[in-house]
């Protein structure tokens, strides 16, 4: 009997089987899952936001009679970019953003590079102490420095109450010193110089010392070596630091909010916030898009610079081993300058913050006015802050603090787990288009300044979408946005951790018959987790001090400490603002202390 089978059918089955096997591989499933998730959480909201800006919104009737809710229109774009209010809405804030960001970046880089050189290349005393102190301002929320500035330089005319300087000297502080671009630039510099310092000292330390030593052997002086060898080789790192700092300074919200709004000095982020607060969502979204575009351009330029380093193989195995430049006679004067700078830039702001939180009457900085009222009073005395209770007594504050901690812990844990899973999906599929797609999508949130990201999520979750309920106003959306914001970092950390493991170590388990879940649980997870620990605790700290990401999304029920501080500042409750900020500082320091104890890692290493 002849059995004949149609040939095409026989050929199809192995192919179909292969496809089936491919689709059930764990890292493929994960990859697809992530792509869908990230599309929903990043790309789709972005599209939604663009769509909103191109359609009529509820409430637009007051601007135009053509307004039909939901219909396509270029009205909003025209309003923002080509109308009478363009100057106030876009041009001014854009110019202000650039001015402050450029000024702050230039200053921060100047200070940071000098400090980096002093610490890693000279024999300045107390180098280790300086290194650990320098990074403190970067641990604090950036706007804390702005608050401290106001405390010192506030003038009565605008602020209503005297600042410390006016109190001590009796002279009226001019407006341009108390608020506006100059204070913004200086306070931003005081925050970002630490960032520049970390980037540059890292580059300096990894420079192969034999490059400078060989020049030394030819008889070149220290100065010549610095000019002709060290600086040219540091150029890419320098430019990169400039661009990264600039891009962050551009998108910052807190500092321009505190120091700019009292004198109606707007930057793009604060203008965005204003629009959204007034219900002008479309206008706000357009500004958010503008911020995203600028940010994307700067990051792209940065990638190009790092990419075209002309193959600078300056990172040798042994790094910098050379002997430091002697400062000789300049040693102690320079040390004094550095210590003064640290005192003014680090200790003074924090100290002043704590001090004003224990002042009873505003404007009275004398020691007789000190009181723990704002920390522990039982409430009811309407003379002070409309009768609010002391910080540590107020159940609302404590609930807010709990929200902050809950948010940070949840974010940290979820981010860590997702990080490893993402890392696994990317590493196992290394080289495939799928893996590259996942990696690039995980990188997208990096392009969006936090305030713009918050705007995206307002548009996204205001209404329910299919099975997903409207998340606006819930705690869930805060966790969601925090996790997504950290995706670029957690995926990178995850990739690094998993790379060390998912190779022969996993294959050895596969060969003896372990299924994926067991391999992941028993081999990959334990071995990758140590690398993720430092990143996890760092996530905790950054979430604790997050303001611009959450300010547009919180409601009274879901407030966190940082947004609460902002509210108090808006209402001019000075001491409560400071007390709350001081409270956050304490929590952040406690968190960092725990990091150093458990893991003995430095924020500097993890930040890079």
């Amino acid at each position: 009997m002849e059995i004949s089978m149609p040939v095409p059918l026989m050929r199809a089955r192995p192919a179909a089987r292969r496809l089936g096997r491919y689709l059930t591989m764990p890292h493929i499933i994960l990859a697809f899952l992530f792509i869908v998730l990230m599309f929903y959480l990043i790309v789709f909201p972005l599209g939604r936001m663009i769509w909103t800006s191109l359609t009529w919104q509820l409430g637009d009737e007051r601007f135009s009679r053509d307004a039909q809710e939901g219909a396509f229109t270029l009205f909003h774009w025209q309003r923002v970019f080509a109308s009478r209010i363009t100057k106030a809405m876009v041009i001014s804030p854009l110019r202000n953003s650039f001015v402050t960001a450029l000024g702050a970046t230039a200053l921060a880089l100047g200070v940071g590079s000098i400090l980096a050189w002093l610490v890693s290349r000279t024999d300045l005393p107390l180098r280790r102490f300086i290194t650990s102190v320098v990074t403190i301002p970067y641990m604090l929320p950036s706007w804390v420095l702005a608050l401290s500035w106001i405390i010192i330089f506030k003038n009565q005319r605008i602020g209503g109450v005297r600042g410390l300087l006016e109190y001590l000297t009796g002279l009226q502080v001019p407006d341009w010193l108390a608020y506006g671009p100059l204070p913004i630039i200086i306070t931003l510099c005081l925050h970002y110089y630490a960032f520049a310092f970390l980037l540059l000292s890292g580059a300096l330390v990894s420079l192969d010392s034999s490059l400078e030593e060989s020049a030394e052997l030819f008889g070149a002086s220290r100065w010549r070596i610095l000019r002709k060898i060290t600086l040219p080789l540091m150029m890419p790192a320098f430019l990169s630091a400039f661009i990264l700092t600039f891009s962050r300074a551009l998108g910052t919200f807190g500092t321009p909010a505190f120091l700019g709004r009292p004198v109606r000095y707007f930057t793009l982020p604060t203008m965005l916030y204003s629009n959204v607060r007034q219900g002008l969502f479309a206008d706000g979204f357009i500004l958010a898009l503008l911020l995203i575009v600028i940010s994307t351009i700067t990051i792209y330029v940065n990638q190009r610079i790092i990419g075209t380093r002309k193959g600078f193989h300056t990172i040798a195995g042994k790094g910098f081993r050379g002997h430091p430049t002697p400062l000789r006679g300049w040693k102690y004067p320079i040390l004094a300058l550095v210590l003064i700078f640290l005192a003014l830039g680090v200790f003074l702001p924090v100290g002043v913050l704590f001090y004003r939180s224990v002042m009873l009457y505003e404007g009275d900085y004398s020691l007789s006015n000190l009181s723990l009222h704002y920390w522990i009073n039982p409430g009811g005395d309407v003379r002070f802050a409309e009768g609010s209770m002391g910080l540590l007594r107020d159940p609302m504050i404590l609930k807010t603090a709990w929200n902050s901690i809950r948010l940070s812990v949840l974010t940290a844990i979820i981010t860590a787990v997702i990080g490893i899973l993402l890392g696994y999906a990317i590493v196992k599929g290394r080289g495939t288009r799928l893996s590259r797609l996942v990696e690039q999508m995980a990188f997208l949130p990096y392009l969006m300044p936090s305030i713009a990201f918050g705007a995206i999520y307002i548009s996204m979750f205001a209404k329910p979408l299919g099975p997903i309920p409207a998340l606006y106003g819930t705690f869930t959306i805060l966790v969601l946005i925090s996790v997504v914001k950290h995706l670029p970092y957690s995926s990178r950390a995850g990739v690094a951790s998993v790379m060390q493991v998912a190779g022969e170590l996993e294959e050895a388990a596969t060969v003896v018959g372990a299924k994926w879940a067991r391999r992941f649980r028993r081999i990959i997870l334990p071995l990758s987790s140590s690398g993720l620990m430092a990143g996890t605790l760092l996530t905790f700290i950054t979430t604790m001090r997050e303001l611009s990401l959450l300010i547009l999304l919180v409601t009274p029920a879901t407030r966190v400490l940082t947004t609460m501080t902002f509210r108090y500042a808006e209402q001019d409750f000075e001491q409560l603002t400071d007390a709350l900020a001081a409270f956050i500082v304490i929590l952040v320091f406690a968190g960092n202390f725990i990091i150093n104890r458990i893991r003995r890692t430095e924020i500097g290493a993890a930040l890079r």
Partner: protein
Amino acid sequence: MIGVTLRHVSKRFGEVVAVDDLSLDIEPGSFLTLLGPSGCGKTTALRCIAGLEEPDEGEIQIGERVVFSSAEGLFMPPGQRGLGLVFQSYALWPHMTVFQNIAFGLELQKLPKTEISGRVEQSLADLKMDGMEERYPHELSGGQQQRVAVARMLAARPDVFLMDEPLSNLDARLRTDMRSELKRLHHMVGATTIYVTHDQLEALTMSTQIAVLCQGNLFQVGTPDEIYRQPANLFVADFIGSPKINLLEATVRTEDGQPRLDFGSFSISYPALPVIQEVVAAIRPEDIALSLQPAPGAVEFVIYSVLPAGSELIVQVQRDEVLLTIKETRRQINVGIDQPVWLQFDPDSINLYDKRTEQLLKLE
């Protein structure tokens, strides 16, 4: 031509003693190799000579000038010592062309432009790198980068050449080629050269003098032949030579008035009577004669492993607990595992070492 002298030089890094009371006399025009395993202090010693490290004690003299003296608190900066150094990583400045790399040192000597370009071209030609002036280091292969590094040192015409494992990043083939190039250069220029390496073959082939270091201590200085034929202690004996030397414990006995070395399972006669009785005998693999037939005075062994390698044959033979390595260069030998063979030793070529102190026993 200028010589270099080190007197009682010591250098510590915290608890670790990198160089321990090193005294060395490097003759003008010689090619001296500092040889030893990793961590023996050879690179530190070189860097002390260069002035990139400051020793804790001692004196260093280059030619007539004392460039370092701990007793007098003297330290001459590296740039004034008139030395050239080729680093292991080549240290070519990546942002400069080959020409600029080589010209850098010459500009510092305030030479006129024509002289500079002349020297650059000359040194590139000497290293067979003509026409590469406008290339950047990353556009060159490893071997080419290495030549540029040497050219850079040559062009500056220093009194003394220092080289820190310059060939270790090259593949085996290139390494052997570069060895002969460097040796030719030394012959041509005649400058005193101090060379650091952990490769004993490199040291043997290139040097006029070898200084063997171990954990900061100088174990032996001598010509390659002296080091090979008369290693001063067991460490040097074991370190030099490929394949490794055979080291066997033995007891010295006399039989009928004639000295014999008793290895336990067999014994051989020996021409001299050492004062120490517990010794270690050092036998080079090529000094053992292998025969397939029994012969008078020969000792029977059994083949343990056979490693044919083209021009030579490495055989391991065993007798009780004794395992010996033999290098056989005759073509006709055809042996298999577990086959019995007969060995004949050449007592004149066997060195004896005091088992306790590990030092060579000088016998006459």
